[in-house]
């Protein structure tokens, strides 16, 4: 229970810290001057809904020289901390930093499934639209399933994920005259803390490294963003249930496919879906089809309020986790500059 409270507090601090850091910037712009210049522009035409009230000239100008790329073109933060969709890392470098800039993002994501709660939070740094380094923490709350296993309610399995991504070639946004996607390679090193179930009862490896290559293309004239990612992994349920098979027998990395498509509705709003296949290394652990692992998919809406805040909401089907299929609601907040 104390563990659980600590995680909640950490999340609150993460959000509050980001909020405190960014709120002064949002209000620091000189509003009266901007309103005057907007009036001087003399354009009475109604704005598009997504831009209502926030698009006076220069009102999105940064206080410091970071984050010049277009809205949503860094994607959002995945539950593992890398820039991408909700489940799938993309070749885009997270945040809005251009080739001359560095930037930082923080995120917090809550996923409420049929039987569990996942809370993920973390931060990432982007360097010159070339390198992204991320750190994420996941707390997976077994809720009443924990009691079923004799662990009491709200038993939590936690893991830390250290990620890095490097853009190799292409610019998904600028190179609209070419079909060549932006291509990046990345790694996610995961360290699972749980010695009771993962390291204990299941006797599984508690750390592992995923490697991926991602290709992302913005087909701007079609309002469409497409991504394909190939991941090599031995993680069970993203690492929350450890790595490799039972008894350390199956240690090989499996090649898995992940894909995303997003339709741009406005420059601030996108709607899309994702699919992510996963290894199935623990099926039958408790007999029958228990612990079978299946493909996850989601449909999402991402909205960028401005350069500093975006919100993503999704419906996720995580497939079976432990005993049965997990449908989930997903809500994520990103802060960045």
């Amino acid at each position: 229970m104390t563990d659980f409270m600590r995680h909640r507090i950490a999340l609150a601090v993460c959000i509050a810290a980001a909020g405190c850091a960014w709120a002064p910037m949002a209000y620091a712009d000189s509003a009266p001057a901007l309103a005057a210049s907007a009036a001087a522009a003399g354009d009475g035409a109604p704005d598009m809904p997504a831009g209502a009230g926030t698009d006076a000239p220069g009102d999105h100008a940064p206080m410091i020289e970071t984050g010049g790329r277009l809205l949503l073109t860094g994607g959002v933060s995945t539950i593992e901390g890398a820039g991408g969709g909700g489940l799938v890392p993309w070749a885009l470098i997270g945040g809005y930093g251009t080739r001359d800039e560095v930037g930082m993002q923080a995120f917090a994501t809550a996923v409420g499934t049929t039987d569990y709660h996942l809370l993920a939070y973390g931060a990432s740094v982007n360097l010159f639209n070339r390198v992204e380094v991320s750190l994420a923490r996941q707390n997976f709350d077994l809720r009443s399933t924990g009691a079923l296993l004799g662990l009491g309610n709200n038993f939590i399995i936690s893991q830390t994920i250290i990620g890095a991504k490097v853009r190799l070639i292409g610019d998904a946004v600028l190179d609209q005259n070419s079909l060549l996607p932006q291509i990046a390679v990345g790694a996610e090193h995961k360290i699972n803390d749980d010695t009771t179930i993962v390291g204990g009862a299941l006797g599984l490896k508690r750390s592992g490294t995923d490697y991926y290559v991602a290709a992302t293309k913005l087909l701007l004239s079609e309002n469409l963003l497409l991504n394909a990612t190939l991941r090599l992994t031995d993680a069970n349920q993203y690492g929350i249930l450890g790595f490799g098979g039972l008894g350390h027998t199956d240690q090989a990395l499996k090649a898995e496919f992940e894909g995303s498509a997003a339709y741009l509705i406005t420059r601030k709003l996108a709607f899309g879906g994702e699919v992510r296949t996963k290894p199935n290394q623990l099926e039958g652990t408790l007999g029958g089809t228990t612990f079978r692992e299946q493909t996850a998919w989601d449909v999402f809406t991402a909205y960028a309020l401005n350069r500093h805040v975006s919100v993503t909401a999704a419906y996720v089907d995580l497939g079976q986790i432990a005993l049965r299929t997990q449908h989930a609601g997903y809500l994520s907040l990103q802060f960045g500059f």
Partner: protein
Amino acid sequence: MISLFLALALTAAPVTEPALGDPSIKPHYPTLPVITDNEHLFDQFGGKPGLTALIDDAMNRWLVNPRTRPFFEHADQARIKDLLVKQFCVVLHGPCTYDGRTMAESHRGLNIREGNFYALVEELQIAMNKRGIPFSAQNRLVAALAPMHRDIIAK
């Protein structure tokens, strides 16, 4: 239908790229990449009056945004606006002639960074929103202009 489009494309007057004042500045991408062979897209932008109003608003925004202001505040804004209207008009298959220089030549030595380029695009997007230009039409224009980054942004 397809053959009709092809016929139109073939009979349309070829768009002549601006002559190179300095042959050492080789463009990476056309200054006038015509992206359609019919009038629909041009109409969605409100024709030439629509483009003129759009660029007027965009220029006002570029003069406010600190990331774009330095490139316009001491420049001949009327001339730049006139050329941009003509350029966009030609790209959208409108009845205009562009009489400016290539993008590579006109941006030489300005030391434009990627952040300046994106800020210009974003203000243009906001101006297009204000004029109610459909987002998909906006994106067709921006997609045609984006590859000019190779001729505009200083490495």
